[in-house]
């Protein structure tokens, strides 16, 4: 795997810049900057329970982040992770009706298989439309996201609605199909470990297999890949459906590990946030794990901030967005050239200094 020092520098600069902007914004609004940051930290990592919440919130972002990252390596954007996740969740809720009698291990395996397949097939629709009919995958996946949302709505109001018939949600998964909590009462569930295993698997696939190499080659230079004898269209399709499968798995794990049911507005936009996670993760599985944890920490921390300081928990989204925007800006050629002209060390020192001043 190639290390790109400029990318790490950009990330650091982006984090520092975001911190500065947040500081300025909060001061302007008359809110105590130190208490916000302190509560962010406490909310994310203050005690074991909080740490587990960080991991819980990071879990779906990790799966979907890996999905987007995988597609990116083949040169594609998978904007459909949101819909693929929903289909994975829905399929899990559906299969849950039939597996109550099975052993726990088998039930969970089925959940994984079903959610992978659902995401795979949903992405496959978009892949088919692209290959056979040249439909732009950004548009088709966006449309399919909406179809998925309405499918969920229809299902939870209709065929999959809970037996009690009170709320628009599915029946809870049978206990055997539920991912066990590893440190009760904390919500840290087996699915989180599974996510790490999947991250490792993705890494092995991309960097230690021939198939993964072909995929990366296709994304790195499709023309050269074609000259090298790689079937570029096939690689793109494979990347896309694998990406969809991972996003589908995200949905299944979230149902099995946390919610047990599927309902309207099941996803607060995991599929879209995943794009930000993939970017911050610098397209490496390790990076995506760290980025997902970072985003999860912000989510967990922000709910603590809401309780104590009173600032809405969507502050997390603000911070996440600002970090990504800065990173996107700093990764451009224009800024990269600027950075390499000013010595990077000097720039870093400068910004750290400014950040220091700001906080006092």
């Amino acid at each position, binding site marked *: 795997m190639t290390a790109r020092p400029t990318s790490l520098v950009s990330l650091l600069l982006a984090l520092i810049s975001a911190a500065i902007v947040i500081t300025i914004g909060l001061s302007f*609004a008359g809110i105590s900057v130190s208490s916000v940051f302190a509560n962010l930290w406490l909310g994310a990592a203050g005690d074991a329970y909080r740490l587990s919440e960080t991991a819980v919130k990071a879990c779906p972002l990790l799966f979907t982040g890996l999905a987007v990252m995988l597609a990116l390596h083949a040169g594609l*954007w998978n*904007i459909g992770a949101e819909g693929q996740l929903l289909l994975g969740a829905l399929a899990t809720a559906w299969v849950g009706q039939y597996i109550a009698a099975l052993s726990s291990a088998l039930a969970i395996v089925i959940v994984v298989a079903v959610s992978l397949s659902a995401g795979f097939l949903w992405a496959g629709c978009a892949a088919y*439309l692209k290959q056979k*009919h*040249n*439909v*732009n995958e*950004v*548009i*088709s996946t*966006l*449309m*399919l*996201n*909406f*179809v998925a*949302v*309405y*499918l969920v*709505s*229809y299902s939870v*109001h*209709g065929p999959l609605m809970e037996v009690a018939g009170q709320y628009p949600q599915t029946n809870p998964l049978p206990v055997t199909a539920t991912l066990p909590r590893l440190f009760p009462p904390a919500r840290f569930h087996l699915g989180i470990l599974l996510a790490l295993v999947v991250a490792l698997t993705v890494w092995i696939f991309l960097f230690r297999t021939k198939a993964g190499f072909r995929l990366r080659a296709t994304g790195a230079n499709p023309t050269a890949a074609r000259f090298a004898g790689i079937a570029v269209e096939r690689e793109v399709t494979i990347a896309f459906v694998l990406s969809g499968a991972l996003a589908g798995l995200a949905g299944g794990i979230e149902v099995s590990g946390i919610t047990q049911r599927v309902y309207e507005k099941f996803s607060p*936009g995991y599929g*879209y*946030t995943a*794009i*930000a996670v993939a*970017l911050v993760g610098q397209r490496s599985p390790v990076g995506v794990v760290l980025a997902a944890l970072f985003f999860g920490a912000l989510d967990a921390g922000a709910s603590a901030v809401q309780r104590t300081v*009173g*600032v*809405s*928990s*969507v*502050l*997390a*989204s*603000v*911070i*996440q*967005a*600002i970090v*990504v*925007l800065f990173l*996107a*800006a700093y*990764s*451009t*050629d*224009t*800024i990269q050239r600027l950075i390499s002209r000013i010595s990077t060390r000097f720039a870093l020192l400068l910004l750290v200094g400014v950040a220091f001043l700001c906080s006092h």
Partner: protein
Amino acid sequence: MDFLVTLLTNGGALLHSTLVAATPLLLAALGETIVQRAGVINIGLEGILLIGAFAGVTTCYMSGSPLLGMLVGALSGLLFALLFAGLTIGLSADQIVVGVSLNLLAAGITGVLYRGIFGVTGQAVQVTTFAPISLPFLGTFPVFGPALFQHTALVYLAIALVPLCTFFLFQLRAGLQLQAVGEHPHAAETLGISVRKVRTFALAMEGLLGGIAGSYLSLAYSNTFIEGMSAGRGFIALAIVIFGRWNPSGALWGALFFGAATALQFHLQALGSEIPYQFVLMLPYVLTILALVLLKTHTSAPAALGQPYNRE
């Protein structure tokens, strides 16, 4: 038979709801049409709508004037769009990443500010809204009078913008230059057209229109602000642009179609229909994909759509 009777008697109400639902979609889609004709895909339109909605409500709350609210909403949308322009055109950052991030930012900022300004109350904030204006004479027609001609001013504005945009794009030299930028930016540059300036202008227009569309949501469609109230309309607008084949008049039909679907969902039960309303809501999206497949719509897309242009 019963269905038809119910449809006719409800027809007026349905038509009215359609126009109301279609208006924000139309405004947003017109903005995105101009932008895509210039070769840019702005997924951040959703964020622009949300910002416009919030800015509109807040201003109206503080000033009591929905008109002022709309103006501030338009300006906020403009600022957001210029941020997009600065990053994607000025620095050539990736359009998808910036668009998605701006949506995230808008959701976050509006949520934080809403709570910060209005506090946590059980009830949603309420503001005075635009009053419907009945067009003289036309508004008194039986059945279709109220349906078509008793609307808030923004509805009329949106519809009036359609021929205006068509005129701009196809009858003005400046509009042709904008299209050239979206078709063949290199050729446009050799003709002395600045790709950067044109695209920035297009995005600015979209910002204004999107901001107005957003403030319509909180100042006419409803009378309040709810977090995430844009509810995916920015993405729907993207579908409408394609459905309408990058024409303002096509955008009108697309907006009416999507608006009708939205309106229909509420009337379905009254119409005694068995169709689950979700399938009605799904229909426009499925049809958009179908349109792309069957009508070979991809060939009417601006040739350089989505490709960043770098001057050598």
